[in-house]
């Protein structure tokens, strides 16, 4: 026994000798990123992570963030939330209490952003969710903000656009009833459409369930209903199937989508079937100008593909956080006071020039910003068609 004890003590001494002695704590600002790096939607997590790393490069090139005439180093704390609600809550708790981050960007999906926002608000830590469209994420939570427009805005935008562009009076909707985003948006579109064209003008309101791959019965119904346009607020994998099957069944009229179409995968999967279709989005990659173009070119050069809207929205959210930190006056060193100062600065941000448009936060923490109508051109690129502002 004595030998084993001496062995343990020996190990301990060696470990202590190897330890670098207490180094001075440097002044750094930590920003947390809560992203779904593994799980159902890894591409979303990857986009957020890459955008954040690009942002960090910029900040490091500038020598850090300047607050009250002093430069502070910035450190990113990237946590994986596995696309699960409880994991997002744990990740937020960890970043707030362990890593002591000043602000958090993420989580992206509403099912993680709603509970994680509750944690951030309870700990009085500012959080911006770039992509969540559920009103509950920010509702009654002064510390939680959002980087994108909401569905109650997007629904009418699409309804107005279709009315003006195609002159249609009868519309059909095809959506996933088991997923919160498509369902919410489908309902807002229906309300907006019936407001313009009168009750009953949505002639078919057809639904399916997540992971369905055959839509022929719903599409047949839609074709028979005499609809002049289909609105389908689905994700890229379903969009490709829906559009292809609609064309096979002889549908030649327009199909319109929402911001969930805005992934590079949409065109990869859908091919020429999707050329010429329209959808509403946060920004358009092809034909972009100024800082938007600079961002896209840099991202594409670095990671090999055109960034989708999640990356762009994450980039903008980080930009807003940066602006808020730089305008908050001075760092007190007391993390709680600093977080509140950042929150107050965020609430005061006016006309932030982001790559996805100008942003100003409302009292609820939701931004007022313009939507973009994108056309998929003959090369399969997302081309800017027009901009719709509130």
């Amino acid at each position: 026994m004595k030998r084993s004890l001496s062995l343990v003590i020996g190990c301990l001494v060696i470990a202590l000798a190897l330890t670098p002695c207490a180094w001075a704590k440097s002044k750094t600002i930590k920003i947390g990123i809560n992203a779904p790096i593994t799980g159902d939607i890894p591409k979303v997590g990857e986009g957020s992570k890459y955008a954040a790393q690009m942002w960090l490069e910029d900040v490091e090139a500038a020598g850090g963030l300047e607050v009250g005439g002093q430069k502070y180093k910035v450190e990113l704390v990237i946590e994986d939330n596995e696309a699960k609600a409880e994991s997002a809550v744990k990740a937020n708790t960890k970043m707030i209490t362990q890593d002591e981050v000043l602000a958090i960007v993420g989580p992206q999906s509403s099912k993680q952003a709603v509970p994680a926002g509750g944690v951030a608000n309870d700990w009085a830590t500012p959080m911006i969710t770039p992509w969540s469209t559920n009103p509950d994420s920010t509702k009654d939570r002064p510390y939680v903000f959002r980087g994108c427009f909401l569905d109650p805005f997007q629904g009418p935008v699409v309804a107005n656009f279709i009315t003006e562009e195609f002159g249609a009076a009868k519309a059909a909707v095809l959506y996933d009833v088991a997923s919160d985003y498509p369902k919410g948006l489908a309902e807002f579109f229906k309300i907006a459409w019936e407001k313009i064209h009168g009750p009953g003008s949505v002639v078919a309101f057809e639904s399916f369930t997540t992971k369905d791959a055959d839509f022929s019965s719903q599409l047949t119904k839609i074709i028979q209903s005499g609809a002049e346009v289909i609105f389908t607020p689905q994700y890229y994998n379903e969009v490709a199937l829906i559009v292809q099957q609609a064309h096979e069944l002889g549908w030649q009229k327009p199909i319109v989508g929402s911001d969930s179409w805005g992934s590079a995968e949409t065109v990869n999967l859908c091919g020429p079937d999707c050329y010429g279709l329209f959808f509403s989005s946060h920004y358009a990659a092809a034909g972009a100008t100024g800082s938007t173009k600079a961002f896209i070119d840099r991202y594409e050069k670095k990671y090999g593909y055109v960034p989708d809207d999640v990356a762009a929205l994450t980039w903008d959210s980080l930009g807003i956080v940066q602006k808020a930190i730089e305008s908050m006056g001075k760092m007190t060193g007391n993390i709680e006071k600093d977080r509140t100062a950042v929150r107050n600065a965020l609430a005061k941000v006016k006309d932030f020039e982001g790559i996805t448009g100008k942003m100003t936060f409302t009292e609820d923490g939701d931004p007022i910003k313009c939507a973009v109508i994108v056309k998929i051109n003959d090369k399969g690129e997302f081309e800017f068609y027009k901009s719709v502002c509130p």
Partner: protein
Amino acid sequence: MTNQQPEIQSNGPSKGGKGYFKAFRSYFSCVPMLGWLAGIIAAVLFERFLGDQISELLGLPKIPVLFGCMIMLKDFSLIPSALAFLVGVYFIPILLVGRALAPVFNGLAGMIYKISPMFSVVLHLALLYLALHLWADLSAYRLMTLKFTLVAVMLTLSLNVINGYMGEFSCSHPGFMALGAYAASVFTLVLFTNDRFFGEALLSPSMGVYFFPVAIILGGFAAALGALVIAIPSFRTRGDYLAIISLAFMFIVKSLIENLEVVGGPRGLGSQPNYASLPMVFGWTVLCIWVINNFVRSTLGKALNAVRDDESAADAMTVNTRRTKMVGFLFGAFWAGAAGGLFAHILRYVNPASFGLQRLAEILAMVYFGGLNSVHGSIVGAVSISLLGEALRPLELFKWIIIPLLLILVMIFRPTGLIAFKEFNVKQLVRPRN
């Protein structure tokens, strides 16, 4: 934290590394549970008062939360310091206090045991709670992880009743959990919260905490009712067919909630009141372990085993197989529902997507990793998979290679799980070791 010490008496030290290990084990085999708990409390107190200074001295940014795993995986140069912290703050105080005061604690444990074994168990539980409370008090992240781990223990145990003790392969646990989570959430939201789903609170919100156990029990009964619904049509089926029926039930529950606009549909239900404090969750977990442990050791529990091993033989031996299976199934579902109710109030948000195939895989992994037909095993499985999942967080994608790999290894070398087919004898556990 659950320090289950094996009670192996070795025949004296032999040479070699294995010999050292054996000697080490036999040297500490005389320490009673009371001694280990005292050691853990001493270590946790040590960390509480001197942890900051020690971690600063070692160059660590903060006190390592989950035994230093996160720090080690994030920054390899900090591995020696994190290990030193682990050894210095946890291992040495626990072993030292446990071993040095072993005679004292043995005497004490004997005295308490003589008064009443029940009293001894309660005292041990109180000490365990104290240790967990002090440990979790240092960081909110620890607290959150601990609460989810305790809920995982409940879920794993309740599934073990069906899959392990009853020998049926049931896949409906996420469904039961969802029923419990929604029933408990609706109860607390309607009665004690002003929210946008159900409007004004019907009763004073200050009374809510006292009624929270009612909400959990209600959640349990909702799940048991759901279990009854599938138990009746699936009486005639066994094995794969029951698995398929129960899987279908899980999807039915999920779709049902997705289409119920009253409880938020796919958007989920949020802003549950913050009632699930650590004592509450700990209390429920202890109750769950106690009741299930008594259940499986009772005549009914033995009847469950008999039905599993040979249904017609059991029938011939006057076991009412139908009633036994029914009770076992409903009992397992009840605790899954209770765990779901707690889960909803810890997370303070529920949505149907949380109760899908991924959750099923998680619970099944915990059951089979820990061991079938064993209360020990379920505790070990749930705690180790939950803590591994948290501790390997910095590895991101590789975490999903390491954990399944571990599962495969366990299945190869111990096909029924780590600690399978073993009785959990609480009285044996709290007895003095001399």
